[in-house]
């Protein structure tokens, strides 16, 4: 059985291919710009290197966010189209959980994606990738101050966090897939990004309506 993994939600693109549970291909690199230009050739290259036809893939794991809105949409549109037209099973994965697959010694792992102006996408996981605090859009300082202080934790991020100790992710796709292999696949039509944040226009619209009420 061939399993395909794709993440385009942060500046690091990850493509991994597993055959019968063993990783036979792993790409993980910074794509600075023009993700749209590079992504399909990267996927093509991955399949070619493994001598796999796209229709041989049995299940697709795809990161649905949170993270870069455009990045997520590019990856998801490809996977949605692929899974819909070739009737493939697809399993959505959290970008924060992927970051939290990094192997560490502390009780908790706190994956972090910068969302500017002191805000971030953040969550808390344990070493088995169980959710301790669900993924959310939050003010970083507030969130950190509310983590159970009887527990030790490690901040993990690709971004720069001034004044905080953190480590760079060393993602473990196999660990993540093992955790999710029995998840119920979702219909490709309903595979959608998990932005964790409304658009500014929607937020302002809601505020205006709240005032009216």
């Amino acid at each position, binding site marked *: 059985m061939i399993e395909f993994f794709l993440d385009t939600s942060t500046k690091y693109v990850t493509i991994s291919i597993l055959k019968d549970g063993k990783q036979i291909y792993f790409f993980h690199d910074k794509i600075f710009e023009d993700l*749209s230009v590079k992504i399909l050739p990267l996927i093509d290259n991955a399949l070619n290197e493994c001598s796999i036809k*796209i229709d041989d893939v049995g299940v697709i794991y795809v990161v649905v966010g949170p993270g870069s809105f455009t990045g997520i*949409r*590019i990856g998801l549109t490809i996977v949605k189209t692929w899974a819909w037209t070739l009737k493939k099973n697809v399993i959505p994965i959290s970008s924060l959980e992927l970051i939290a697959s990094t192997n560490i010694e502390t009780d908790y792992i706190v994956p972090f994606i910068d969302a500017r102006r002191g805000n971030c996408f953040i969550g808390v996981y344990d070493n088995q990738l169980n959710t301790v605090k669900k993924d959310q859009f939050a003010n970083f300082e507030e969130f950190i101050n509310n983590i159970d202080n009887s527990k030790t934790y490690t901040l993990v991020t690709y971004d720069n966090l001034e004044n905080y100790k953190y480590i760079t992710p060393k993602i473990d796709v196999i660990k993540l897939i093992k955790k999710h292999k029995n998840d119920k696949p979702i219909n490709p039509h309903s595979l959608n*990004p998990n932005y964790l944040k409304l658009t500014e226009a929607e937020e302002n619209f809601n505020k205006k309506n709240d005032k009216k009420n």
Partner: protein
Amino acid sequence: MKDIYILAIESSCDETSASIIKNGNEEISTVVLSQMDTHANYGGVVPEIASRMHVENITLVLEETLNKANITMNEITAIAVTYGPGLIGSLLIGVEAAKTLAYIYHKPLIPVHHIIGHIYANNLKKELQFPLIALVISGGHTELVYMENHYKFKKIGSTLDDAVGEAYDKVARVLNLPYPGGPLVDALAHKGEDTYNLPLPLDDDSYNFSFSGIKSAVINLKHNEEQKGNTINKENLACSFQNRIIKVITKKTMKALNEYNVNKLIIAGGVAANKGIRNEFEQLCDINNIDLIIPAINRCTDNAAMIGAAGYYAYQLNQFAKYDLNAKSNIENL
């Protein structure tokens, strides 16, 4: 000759659309999912919301298009997609979906310029004959194009500032009309009389247009009248505005037909749905023996059928892209 079936995708603004076009002029099936009701809440298209809705709907629209046509992907000859100009986040959804389908099914991938698509909407009504003059009028464009053959475009004039549709929407806002206001201005204009003294937009010898002046004139006029305590007659203001627009557009278009010695005119783009503009051109072309084509109203606004029609001719010219095709918000040339 073997029939050519183009699967086309359009997502450049706030419509998610797919279509299957046979041999460049026969519409087998088209699905257009408009987000207009959503954006109306915000008084205009919100790019991030548009992108979000495109990704939610893209595969549903593709599936319905194929189902309606009762055609499988294997029977499709090539895949055409709008790659620009337009909203970048919106364009990307169509482009990624098109590239993925072309990749999976080993089909040629045809990038189509949005405006060329609008021009070819006319090919769905009547096969284009050359040479011709194309007048492209929409919310983002105002262009006069000379075509001596399929896919041979010579831009002879364009707007120096606002597009004509933009001017309509701004005037609509001045008149407190809801979004999208262009069609409402058109409707009001038919009920009013030309009583307001507005300037004629860029009435020179060139084929270029300028609509920011008349837009400002409408804003100032309303402001001045209100200061004097007079209420604006919306119907009359809409009529006065529309008459100026029609006058300058028809004048320059008829001049182009005359100077290029062409007797075929096609009109394209969202503003081609404007009844005032349609009526005036129909009359003028009748008098001057000009062969006029205007798309059906629902093919004036954004749709993938027009992309499939244009894509057919690009296919004949082997205008193919690779899987590294990117979306472009701006494209200089047609």
